[in-house]
């Protein structure tokens, strides 16, 4: 098929619920690229030129946008930018890729012991908590300060040049986490569940604090990455990885108000918002219909993991762009034929009228077969013409 739009134009059309020349495609390739190109986690995190070069070598599996791995900036910075990164990750990871090393993984443990203490003294109570993995403290203060204030500029410069050279937009410029995402890792799912039932006022109180904090940090990050100048840097990647299995009451009371407030804040300040929301949110689609209330068209994308995409299209398709959701297990253990079949179905279910980006569920597992990820890109080219 002949492609008549640039990648950025194609993606913008989808965000604005217009049909492009074809369905845009954009697997969320985070750790797989350094893995395929033989980088260590350390190189991936600390040498952005190498990461950008590796990404350039993997454009065949990237489709219409690339992941600048803003998450690495969050892992390195000091003051709790998307704070769970420092608080809960395994810091022993950096010299190798798996199986010798590991990608950052969450330790579920109760780090935040006292809501009132955090409310009174701020995030230092989390970040300098004795329960945090001790390797965090092996880094010097000057090291933290460098990665907080200097390194983001270096990092941004590398990606700005990359976008100019390859004419491919970034999938995000800044990153924020929903308070429940953070609380799941600070408190653990068991304790958070108890909190929601037994001390809901504390969960609300800290959610108010966190949503403001996360929003401001994400917008600053996007500005450093070139929002307004670098295509895609104006996108805030708004994450919720947990907790799984919220009832409608819990979703409506503890998740939705803060999600909507953050989205409104971002959009009213000129950013676009990519809601990267894991788990199966199908029971909550009716509440999510209000996502665009009071906001201009074309500013929100829902990047869904296990949610039923066909139902999402039926309920939300007239108001937000949808992105998703080829299963991770299929990318690792399936065949290109499996992936093609799944993608074809997703396109049939979701692409009509525009407003759909074909992608992975959450991120592409690093151990996915390259030909399977490539099959996603090819499926958009094969079946996605409008």
């Amino acid at each position, binding site marked *: 098929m002949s492609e008549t739009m640039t990648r950025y134009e194609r993606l913008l059309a989808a965000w604005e619920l217009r049909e492009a020349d074809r369905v845009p495609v954009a697997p969320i390739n985070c750790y797989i690229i350094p893995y395929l190109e033989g980088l260590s986690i350390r190189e991936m995190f600390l040498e952005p030129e190498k990461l950008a070069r590796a990404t350039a070598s993997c454009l065949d599996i990237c489709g219409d946008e690339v992941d600048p791995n803003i998450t690495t900036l969050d892992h390195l910075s000091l003051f709790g930018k998307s704070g769970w990164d420092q608080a809960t990750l*395994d810091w022993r990871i950096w010299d190798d890729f*798996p*199986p010798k090393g*590991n*990608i950052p*993984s*969450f*330790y*579920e*443990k109760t780090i935040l012991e006292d809501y009132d203490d955090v409310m009174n003294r701020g995030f230092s109570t989390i970040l300098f908590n004795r329960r945090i993995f001790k390797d965090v403290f092996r880094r010097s203060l000057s090291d933290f300060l460098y990665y907080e204030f200097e390194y983001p500029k270096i990092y941004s410069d590398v990606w700005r040049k990359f976008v100019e050279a390859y004419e491919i937009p970034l999938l995000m410029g800044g990153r924020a986490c929903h308070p429940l995402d953070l609380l*799941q890792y600070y408190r*653990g*799912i*068991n304790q958070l*569940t*108890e909190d*929601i*039932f*037994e001390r809901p006022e504390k969960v609300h109180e800290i959610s108010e604090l966190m949503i403001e904090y996360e929003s401001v940090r994400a917008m600053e990050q996007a500005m450093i990455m070139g929002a307004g100048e670098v295509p895609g840097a104006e996108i805030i990647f708004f994450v919720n990885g*947990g*907790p*799984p*299995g*919220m*009832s*409608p009451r*819990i979703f409506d009371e503890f998740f939705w108000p803060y999600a909507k407030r953050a989205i409104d804040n971002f959009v009213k300040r000129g950013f676009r918002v990519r809601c990267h929301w894991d788990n199966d949110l199908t*029971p909550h689609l009716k509440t999510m219909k209000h996502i665009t209330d009071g906001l201009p068209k074309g500013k929100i994308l829902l990047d869904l993991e296990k949610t039923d995409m066909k139902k999402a299209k039926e309920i939300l398709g007239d108001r937000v762009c949808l992105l998703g959701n080829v*299963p*991770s*297990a*299929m*990318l*690792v*253990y399936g065949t290109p034929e499996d992936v093609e079949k799944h993608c074809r179905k997703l396109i049939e279910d979701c692409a009509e009228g525009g407003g759909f980006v074909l992608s992975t569920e959450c991120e592409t*597992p*690093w*151990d*996915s077969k390259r030909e399977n990820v490539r099959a996603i890109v090819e499926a958009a080219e094969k079946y996605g013409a409008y």
Partner: protein
Amino acid sequence: MGKLSDSIFALNKELVLDAVREGLNAGRDALDLIEECRAGLQKVGDEFERGNMFLMELLRSAQIFKEAAKLIAPKTKEKCQGKLVKGRVLLGTVSGDVHDLGKGIVSTLLECAGFEIIDLGVDVSQNDFVEGIRNHGPQVVGMSGLLTTSIPVMGKTVQAIEEAGLREKVKVIAGGGVVGEVDASKIKADFTTSNANEGIRVIERWLAERA
């Protein structure tokens, strides 16, 4: 259902604990109280399976059950001295994976269902699983993992159990985010699932078949 199981189903901890205290004060049989609590828990599980209740509610019902069980425990210990245990399950997140969330939920639910849990923690080596079986003699081994990379490790863990000559002694279940999408035969397990409640049911069935 009685007041106690209704209150568990309603996720009302105060009512549950009040009903337990009342029951104990009135001299009700401790095992009856436990079973009535369990009936409430079962109803939550059934509604969860039907899609009418959600994981956090399932977890909450288990938390309330555990609180109730704490009040009842001294009486049950007097009475049956451990006979309540349906079986022993060895749990662990496999080597290379440190995710605890799913395993924690399963552990809580299993405990409430009347199983004894030996939790080996996270990043558990194949050898530690083997030693765990030798030392604790479980009927069931539960391997947990969130990452796609954990799936081959689960296969290696089962292989290590096989090589140690212990495979015939245990049923093996694997669970986690994407694990349920993988056929059990691929890792030589007896069952794979991403649904905690389904896992509990399967383990209960296995143990009932053995009895």
